[in-house]
């Protein structure tokens, strides 16, 4: 059921949400979109990933969400490559009969994408370049589930 797209191309959340969950008796659609911050400071961000493992790891996260909550649909799009501040990095969308399920599943997928999907962000600014460090809080967030 769930769908995963790992791509370098930009995407449009509006287009992706068109008809999302339609057909199933869906009462709730939640979407999250992650955007590159740092306008004015950041020249660009580059996201590296592990082709093959990325698709498998994200697919597993989506399958786990579908096992935990009754979802009519679940979509993850995650980009890699260079991006400017203001550009969309990724999105998660979930469709369910009820609000609580759609919210929880989207939140769960995001928590796992943060520290269990093989992506690495590098920032390029006026002061040079630096890999974004993982936060302890991101690892701790997984204990919620």
């Amino acid at each position, binding site marked *: 059921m769930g769908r995963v797209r790992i791509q370098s191309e930009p995407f449009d959340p509006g287009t992706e949400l068109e008809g999302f969950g339609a057909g199933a008796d869906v009462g709730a659609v939640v979407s999250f979109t992650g955007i590159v911050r740092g306008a004015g400071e950041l020249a660009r961000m580059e996201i590296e990933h*592990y082709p093959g493992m990325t698709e*498998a790891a994200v697919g597993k996260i989506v399958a786990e969400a579908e096992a935990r909550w009754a979802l009519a649909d679940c979509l993850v799009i995650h980009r890699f490559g260079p991006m400017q501040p203001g550009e969309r990095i990724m999105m998660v969308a979930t469709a369910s009969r009820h609000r609580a399920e759609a919210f929880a599943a989207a939140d769960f997928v995001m928590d796992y994408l943060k*520290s269990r*999907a*093989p992506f690495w962000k590098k920032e390029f600014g006026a002061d040079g370049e630096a890999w974004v460090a*993982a936060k302890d809080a991101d690892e701790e967030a997984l204990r919620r589930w």
Partner: protein
Amino acid sequence: MLDVMYFAWVRERIGLPREQVDTEATTVADLVQELSAREQRYALAFADLAALRVAVDQELTGFDAPLAGAREVAFFPPMTGG
């Protein structure tokens, strides 16, 4: 023959994204030791294992994981997706 891959700053420190390694190492830790003994760039990249993650055949695992039958090992820092 093992396909060994490096990502993010591990790749930058070692200076290449992947290589074929002819090894008899039986665990990831053995492989790390073997590579570290080779050249300083490896020793530097592997200096602090707590700052590294490892995947064997595209599955996250620990440094004590066995390599029997493995085809691909990847080293990288903690992931920053989302």
